[in-house]
């Protein structure tokens, strides 16, 4: 049990309260993140309501196959992350680290798949500017939002992968015990990044195919 007391940091009285504190902190931070993406999704909503036809036309050209594969990858990673958290609460150290590793692989798989999709998008010229393949100017607004939304999401996912990797390493080397409050924080963040994707997937891939 000595490693557990090492996980308690100032100014917390014990690990239970500390875990609650970290949980509250991460939820407050995610409230901030919701507003961050909220501004972007609002911009999408407003532009779509002004240019419904152009958005319909532009959204037909997103790569549904890549998007669907990525949705599957990310939702599966949420499952493994949840299992990791439950395992950590049950102090199953190896199960926790194993599940985190699978989560990492799925996350990296998402980024690779996204990279391939970006390559195809660029090959077809769907970056706003001169030589854009669609004639109606507001179609470029849709693709502008596509790049910004998926780009910011990918940055969030990359940050998540980095942090999960570091934490898994600290668990592996026994610097931190798995029941440490950190696990609560990274799991909640990971689910948030997935939730954002669940919103982006229909907005970018499905709306053009109704």
């Amino acid at each position, binding site marked *: 049990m000595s490693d557990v007391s090492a996980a308690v940091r*100032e*100014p917390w009285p014990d690990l239970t*309260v500390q875990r*609650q*504190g970290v949980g*509250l*902190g991460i939820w*407050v*931070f995610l*409230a*901030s*993140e919701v*507003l*961050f993406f*909220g*501004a*972007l999704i*609002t*911009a999408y909503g*407003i*532009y779509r309501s*002004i*240019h419904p036809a*152009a958005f319909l036309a532009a959204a037909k050209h997103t790569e549904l196959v890549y998007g669907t594969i990525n949705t599957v990858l990310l939702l599966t990673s949420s499952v493994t992350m949840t299992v990791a958290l439950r395992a950590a609460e049950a102090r199953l150290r190896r199960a926790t680290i194993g599940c985190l590793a699978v989560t990492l692989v799925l996350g990296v798989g998402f980024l690779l798949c996204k990279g391939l999709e970006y390559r195809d998008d660029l090959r077809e010229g769907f970056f*706003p*500017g001169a030589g854009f393949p669609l004639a109606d*100017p*507001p179609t*470029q*607004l849709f693709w*502008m939002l596509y*790049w*910004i939304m998926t780009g*910011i999401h990918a940055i969030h996912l990359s940050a998540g992968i980095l942090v999960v990797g570091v934490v898994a390493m600290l668990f592996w080397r026994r610097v931190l015990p798995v029941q440490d409050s950190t696990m609560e924080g990274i799991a909640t963040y990971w689910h948030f990044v997935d939730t954002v994707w669940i919103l982006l997937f229909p907005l970018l891939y499905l709306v053009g195919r109704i």
Partner: protein
Amino acid sequence: MTEVATDMTLPFAPVEETGAASYLDEGHTIMSWLATTDHKRIAILYAVSITIFFFIGGAAIALVRLELIEPHGWFLTSDAYNRLFTLHGIIMVWFFLVPSIPATMGNFLLPLMIGARDVAFPRLNLLSWYLYVIGAAFTVYVVIAGGVDTGWTFYPPLSSNYANGQVVAAAAGVFVVGFSSIATGVNFIVTTHMLRAPGMTWFRLPLFCWSMYTVSLVMVLATPVLAMSLLLIVAERAFGLPVFDAAHGGDPVLFQHIFWFYSHPAVYIMILPAMGVVSEIFACFARRQVFGYAFMVYALLAIAVIGFMVWGHHMFVAGQSQLANLVFSFLSFMVAVPSAIKVFNWIATMYRGQIGFEAPMLYALGFLGLFTIGGLTGLFLASVPIDVATTDSYFVVAHFHTIMVGGTVSAFMAGIHYWWPKVTGRLYHEFFAQFAAITMFLGFNVTFLPQFVMGWQGMPRRYHTYPEVFQVWHVISSLGAGILVVAYTLPLIYLGWSLFRGERASDNPWHATGLEWQTPSPPPKENFHHVPVIDAEPYMYHETGHPREPGEPTPVREQGE
């Protein structure tokens, strides 16, 4: 009453036990400061950084005021003029006013006031200061690389397509410093929820803690929206994406909506902490309980909530629908109600009190007057027809400076003087402080009352040259700015002197009741040696006015004697 109050203040940190170890004695190396996680030291780091930026921002506007003495300018090019007022706005808003009270006094006092050892996440707290420094580095780069001329509001298409300055670097600086705000906000919210000492119920929190809690809510929920607005500007300027480009069907007014969704609440980020500070000071220097404590709390919460719903009043002339104008106008009037409740409650707090006119109280009284003027002129501007006539005039400039500078800076100075003995363990020269307080109040009014007049007469803001009929007002205003230079420089001198030569302060020189005064000055690293237990309401001063005499036992037992 006195009995209960005495019970409240157990000797949490008797002097004989503390020995020499104040938080200032825990290491004297540079690294002991730069790698500290002590909330008190981080507060000092912030105080030094924002003071530097206050004087940079002040120097920029001093040049502008000097230039405006002549109707056609006399030593600046129009381009340099634009860059100077933009720099002034960016620095004063994001690098001074927004972090001013929360990052310094909030960091130092919130844990002390609730009886905690530190904030919830001390390392995150240090990270927030480093984020501030990184954001500041971007801004310094902007200054060196030639500045930016978009105004602090970064409106497209000027900022995205036409401006020549360092828009991307300036936006990056503000973006990064925003994360520092969010980190502080998250920290304060969790601290207030989780780390209150036994017996410190929500309605026993000092109003300063409530103000820190509400301002943290606004910081956490508003700042990310600013971050997104800046990110979109950078996407358009640096990557050529047609975000707000009307040629592609984009809408520049969308930027204004996103920007003001943050930047109006930002005004409350500046003023809520100021309200917290003066609430402490009025009670202490009138020797009275705060009148209507519960409503003071509700008013803070109401301002924070309604403050999120009024941003459209910045766009009355930007092509918003008449219905939207009407709704935003109504809501802007609504936000005046809790603000007025606070003003009346402060006055009622002082009613029949034994008022002492020490420097903190003078600054706080200055706040009260200026906040009232700023608030009432805000009602003029909340009314659509008046705003249409005065949009982008000096009337608007004078209005928001009266709130943000007159209000927040007065309260900031009040707080600095009030808690100075606690933070440093030293006393400052009272007469100089009183003189500076009065000078600041006079200088402020000489600067901005003429701006109300010329704005009403039609002088537009941000113009480099103007018709000669306005010259007399500009000259008076610049004269006031000169007085303000004196008023802002004086504290630097006598507080600096106090830091090294000042008389040692007792633990509770104002005979105040707050928990922060029940521990030595300066406090030990762990704040309290015993966990304090609270069993009474805050502000246990006299029920009715009663003189404060040197020999008389105060409601609070002094720890230093």
